[in-house]
């Protein structure tokens, strides 16, 4: 009797939530929560005390997403959802035996959960362009916060040429802030090159804002990601006209190199010059040693050495940090994975990324190609930083998962689907 009552109530709720207006409201509520979460991530997650805001938002988003995913019948048997869970299972033996960093495993599990929650939210919203818009709004709100916070430094133009001019440390690591900005630029660039409505050209302004903020972080990784994306993204638009593609890419690269010689970007130029001089002995006119690059080179070598001595299962989560005596990561995702989780963990992680990119290519949608860009950038970044357990990586992974499943050119939003159903019933 009771179960029948509960079942009836559940069915009533389902019918109610499937009404077109309610569907639309639910969609916009989730978009709002996604935008809020994307704003909170770079704004608060790297600050002690404030990071609880991010946790609270994730819990709210999680409750809504999971509940609505059950109501709307999201496919929980999607195998790709569990690929990362298998990776976590691979991480367990070495962590238990060697590094005993159970907190790290818990962090990885929570990040995986956040990826699943975002994926559910995206699946319910179903509109790739609306999701991109929500992410852009979130990042724009963060950009405003960033600009207001650093207004004094930004208005002091003479400080731009200083070698210590790097902004973002008050929020999180400068490279992390730069990666959020890169996410915004890549997504918006795709929307601008493959627009559905004229208003999407307005993303050009957000690209400029994200680009300027990314430059103020002084992150070399940001420049490298931009360069890679500049080469890859236009390929999807104009690959049939190879000579136009070549001219566009060369022009953008030439402009970028020329821009590095402008006084406000002299700090980034100096950092690259020091890096080339230190690592390759190239005469760039810069005589100072780039200790950051020198350290990264040594850490990578050290990580590979440690990894080679424990190739089967690795040294566990944060194994490099624990066994090297260095209180830092190995600065290479590839080396960190092989050092922490052995050859199988490393191969599995990259197989996962490649499979997602391959699935995205098969799906054939416009934004599916963005997944391929992200995976290429991941591979390039594997040599320069550790990203397998960072928040921004899991946001990107949730997007890749979603884009690999859906082709907006073929599928309409839940609102439109419901309308079609009503039209069919009436006919």
């Amino acid at each position, binding site marked *: 009797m009771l179960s029948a009552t509960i079942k009836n109530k559940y069915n009533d709720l389902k019918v109610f939530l499937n009404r077109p207006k309610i569907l639309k409201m639910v969609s916009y509520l989730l978009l709002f929560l996604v935008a809020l979460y994307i704003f909170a991530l770079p704004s608060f997650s790297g600050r002690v005390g404030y990071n609880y805001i991010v946790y609270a938002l994730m819990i709210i988003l999680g409750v809504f997403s999971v509940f609505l995913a059950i109501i709307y019948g999201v496919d929980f048997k999607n195998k790709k959802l569990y690929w990362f869970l298998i990776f976590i299972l691979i991480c367990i033996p070495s962590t238990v035996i060697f590094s005993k960093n159970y907190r790290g495993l818990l962090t990885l599990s929570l990040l995986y959960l956040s990826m699943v929650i975002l994926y559910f939210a995206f699946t319910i919203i179903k509109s790739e362009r609306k999701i991109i818009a929500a992410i852009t709004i979130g990042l724009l709100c963060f950009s405003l916060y960033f600009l207001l916070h650093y207004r004094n430094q930004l208005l002091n133009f003479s400080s731009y040429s200083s070698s210590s001019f790097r902004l973002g440390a008050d929020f999180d690591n400068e490279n992390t802030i730069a990666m959020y900005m890169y996410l915004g630029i890549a997504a918006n660039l795709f929307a601008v090159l493959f627009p559905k409505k004229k208003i999407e050209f307005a993303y050009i302004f957000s690209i400029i804002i994200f680009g300027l903020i990314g430059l103020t972080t002084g992150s070399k990784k940001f420049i490298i990601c931009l360069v890679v994306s500049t080469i890859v993204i236009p390929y999807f638009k104009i690959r049939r006209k190879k000579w136009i593609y070549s001219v566009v890419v060369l022009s953008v690269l030439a402009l970028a190199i020329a821009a590095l010689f402008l006084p406000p970007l002299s700090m980034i130029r100096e950092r690259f010059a020091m890096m080339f001089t230190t690592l390759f002995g190239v005469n760039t006119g810069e005589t100072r040693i780039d200790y950051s690059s020198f350290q990264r080179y040594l850490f990578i070598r050290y990580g590979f*050495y440690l990894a080679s001595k424990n190739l*089967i299962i690795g040294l566990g989560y944060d194994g490099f940090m624990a066994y090297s*005596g260095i209180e830092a990561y190995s600065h290479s995702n590839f080396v960190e994975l092989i050092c922490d989780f052995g050859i199988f963990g490393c*191969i599995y992680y990259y197989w996962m990324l490649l499979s997602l990119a391959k699935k995205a290519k098969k799906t054939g949608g416009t934004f599916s190609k963005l997944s391929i860009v992200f995976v290429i950038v991941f591979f390039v970044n594997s040599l320069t930083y550790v990203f397998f357990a960072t928040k921004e990586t899991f946001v990107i992974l949730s997007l890749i998962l979603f884009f690999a499943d859906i082709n907006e050119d073929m599928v309409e939003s839940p609102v439109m689907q419901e309308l079609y159903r009503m039209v069919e019933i009436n006919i």
Partner: protein
Amino acid sequence: MKIASLPLLLKNKNKLLVRFILAVLYILSSCSIFLLSSKTSGTWIEYCANEITNAVINQKDRDYLSVLIEPNKNSEKRLESPSNEFFLTYGAFGEANAFYAGVMNGDKKYDARINEIRTNESISFLYAYNFYNYEYKGHYIHEFYPIELKFRGYHDYGKSYYFCYISETQANSLLSEMSLEQTEENYQKLLGKKINITVDHTSFEYTIGNIYLEQNYYYETLKNNIGTFVISGGKPLNEISAQACYFMSEQVYKNKYFFDRILKEYSSNDFNKKVNTYNLGENVDYLSLNNKLNVDIDSLTKSDALIISMDVLLALVCVLITTFLFLFDLADNPYILIGTGSLVLLPYLVFYCLYSILKNVLFFSGTACIIHAFLFLIIFSEMIVYAIRNHKKQIQ
């Protein structure tokens, strides 16, 4: 034998024999990589670094063991400047550890004492000649050594390099001798004061330039390895040599890096290298370590190129053998992947166990392990790709 006939060969009754021969060939090739790699200079350096690391660990109550390098008396070669060498080592592995100091009398070979202060111990000198100190959290830091200082410093030495920064304890003793209280004002009065340092019965006048604080990791490492010291420039005696002091820790790779640097930068013909016996823990066979420090590395590096080429060739043979094993058998026997995977891991596991038991890195060198890392990456990636393709073919 033609390639076209090989699949036929595999399909007949000798299949098992062929698989067995290939497996033996793989094991021999893989083991040869481990054995050949033990002859490289890198492995020798790794072995010596392991010995030094074990010596540091065996000391139990000390975190470091220091190595002193000084030019031979007849040699014209000089040490790298302390600031350059310091920054190179400081930048190598991060800031929270001490790796290098430019010193004089680090082994307490000479009896050096400050006349005005009664001490039980001969003093060493932390060699420096640049003193543009900078502000740090309410006090100051030396220009390149991470030593915290009480003041920015007294710099009116004129042409004399005979300045010294004394410790807070030495400053307190000096104030006590002068019947002054330990106040900031009185500490300030010590700057510019002349003191006499006697080295082997010869006195030299020094000017006090600053007072350093006896805190932080760098000071603790120096204290444990060279005892009581002052920071100064200028040699008190011509006989006293500048010494490069490298601190070996409990981390093998760091010791390997610095050991490699010591052997390649400081040849045994021009430099005298030894383990500092001051405050050395028990159970340290420093004579054996000294022999390792003075090895002629050039003779070892001569055969490196040949050995590594042979290792790479053997690795290629391993890849070909494993590819052949699963590629031509996969359609008939899907379980060949598990067998091949086990075979690939077997030699590595055997040598890993040998190393764990015998604790001798010659059985399990970094060179061989890195080659095997690449080997595993190629082989297992190949296996995954072929397994997926075979699975799809079977579904179709």
